[in-house]
């Protein structure tokens, strides 16, 4: 049975069903059982599963990551939640040196099945320290898997895969996605980690996007369609392992590539996608690809300073048009009239 639910509900359902199915799954994080329940993704869980399996924790990101690791190697399946990726920076040592390496360096004797959920991206004036999108830091680390679900369907399916995976999985959730709806099956299902999704087929240009930028890319596709360009939109969904095959096949077909990422540009996710394409389909590339990503400075707080900070559909479309040698019109960059840019676009509601 499929029905329309929101991204946050899909994440909660994934956790709920995994906890019902496997008593070793547990959830912990600052505020997990509190009235806000991490954007509703953990609401009601403690009532259902008890304070032994759904736990608030001390403010100690580094140590709690170690605790999750220790419990994981004993067969538990922790889901550790950070309200922002910015806080998770306190736990980089445990994530990179320990979680990512214990299976390897102990020659397979330990498994570290754990999920670390982190929230990325912009919100109401969150500013420089509360809205980063640091996915490439994790994507660079062997031993980790890194997922970035965009749709509610994928949110549920990928989180279930992550919880059932025997490796540490970093799940990055963009704040503005929690309210997006999608048709989501009631039963448990898995979306495989490591598979991109072709959301819309197209023949003229490939747009590879991560997370929230997938929504902007779909809008960009419409803009392009209006201008006679037929774009293929791929939601990367997983950064590590990366589904290079889907990307390469698409670029082989279209010969053109725009990458739209929620993070910074330099040394970011978009660079890896370009590199992979270059290494694998160089000969089929018809023009130089483009990267649409955050500029290389921190996020300012005032909405007045953010208008040019977060690239929008128009920027993606413009990059595509340029590659195709077509005119770029001002309409692409028109500011919305119904909202300020520091609030999510209510038209991005799904299903996808």
């Amino acid at each position: 049975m499929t029905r329309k639910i929101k991204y946050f509900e899909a994440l909660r359902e994934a956790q709920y069903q995994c906890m019902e199915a496997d008593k070793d799954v547990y959830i912990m994080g600052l505020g997990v059982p509190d009235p806000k329940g991490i954007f509703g993704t953990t609401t009601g869980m403690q009532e259902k599963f008890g304070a032994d399996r759904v736990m608030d924790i001390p403010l100690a990101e580094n140590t709690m990551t170690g605790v999750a690791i220790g419990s994981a190697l004993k067969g538990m399946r922790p889901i550790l939640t950070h309200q922002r990726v910015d806080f998770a920076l306190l736990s980089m040592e445990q994530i990179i040196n320990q979680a990512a390496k214990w299976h390897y360096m102990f020659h397979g004797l330990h498994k570290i099945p754990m999920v670390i959920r982190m929230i990325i991206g912009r919100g109401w004036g969150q500013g420089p320290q509360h809205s980063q999108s640091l996915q490439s830091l994790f994507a660079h680390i062997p031993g980790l898997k890194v997922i970035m679900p965009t749709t509610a369907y994928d949110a549920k399916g990928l989180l279930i895969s992550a919880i059932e995976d025997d490796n540490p999985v970093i799940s990055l959730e963009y704040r503005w996605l929690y309210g997006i709806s999608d048709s989501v099956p009631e039963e448990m299902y898995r979306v495989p980690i490591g598979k991109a999704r072709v959301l819309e087929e197209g023949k003229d240009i490939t747009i590879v996007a991560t997370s929230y930028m997938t929504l902007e890319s779909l809008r960009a596709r419409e803009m392009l369609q209006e201008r006679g360009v037929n774009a293929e939109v791929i939601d990367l969904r997983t950064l590590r392992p990366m589904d290079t095959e889907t990307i390469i096949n698409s670029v082989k077909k279209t010969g053109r590539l725009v990458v739209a990422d929620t993070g910074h540009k330099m040394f970011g996710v978009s660079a890896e996608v370009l590199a992979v394409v270059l290494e694998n389909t160089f000969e089929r590339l018809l023009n130089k690809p483009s990267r649409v990503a955050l500029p290389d400075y921190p996020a300012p707080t005032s909405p007045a300073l953010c208008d040019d900070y977060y690239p929008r559909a128009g920027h993606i479309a413009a990059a595509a048009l340029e590659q195709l040698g077509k005119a770029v019109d001002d309409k692409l960059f028109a500011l919305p009239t119904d909202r300020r840019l520091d609030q999510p676009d209510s038209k991005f509601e799904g299903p996808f």
Partner: protein
Amino acid sequence: MSHKKEVTVKLYSIMNRIRTVEEKIAELYPEQEMRCPVHLCIGQEAAEAGSCAALNDDDYVISGHRSHGHYLAKGGDLKAMLAEIYGKETGCAGGKGGSMHLIDLNVGFIGAAPIVGSTIPIGVGVAFASKLKKENRVMMIFLGDGVAEAGVFHESLNLAQLWNLPVIFVCENNLYSVYSPMHVRQPDTRRIVDLAAAHGMDSHYADGNDVEVVYQLTSDAVKKCRNGQGPVFIEFSTYRWREHCGPNFDNDIGYRTEDEYQVWRKRDPVALFRSKLINDYKFDESEIVKIEHDFKDQVNDAVKFAKESPFPDSSNAELHIYA
């Protein structure tokens, strides 16, 4: 005016200033023109006013996410603060920071940042440099009860004690970290002040809603720091009245009780001290009303200033990426 009276007026003025500004923010926030999170400190004014009042103008303060009170108590520019929260060009951080990144270097308010615990070592570093430069200034670092769970708290205390730095750690224990009560975060077999004492540090615990107690304790601490006798830690018990983040009351959402709130509400630090001024110190009520009134006008002016100030040009976003 006698010294004693001067101090009394100062303490009340600062508390009143904080209360008035925060209430004004709470009132205007629903207009959605302050487009950033705000962490109001209503209920905690005594701990903030009393401790900052013990500092000289050129001493230092650093703070975290809930910094309005510290900024104002240290004498931070009100217009620049409100303009910052309104995201305006005239804001103290040019709109880049918002409510969580207040700064006023003219009065030694080094800055604020909302990663819990992270400004503690930065404050210790300022004190270290200040000591090296023989400035004889004191650094006051504000922190909450949540910070006592974080490693950086202990690392910083260890270092401040080891290097004998002129730092006063002021912990405002308001019983909650967001919606989480103490007992899910810290063992009930110890107090926060015990942790600090275990680092070998001169450590105190006191009622943070009594501004005179706060002022007395912090004044002693300042003297000690000024004499090169090393850091001091003080834990003040207090209570935040409104929601963790935002302008509303939230006793209805279930993480704490209305009863608990009412108990603390009765211990309103501003009202208590106001009564004391009248009953014990024989202030004329009109004197007090004048202070309050003058400041209300200032706040209204500042709001007007903030609202009327221009937004920064979007190209300002590219300023100051590198020094």
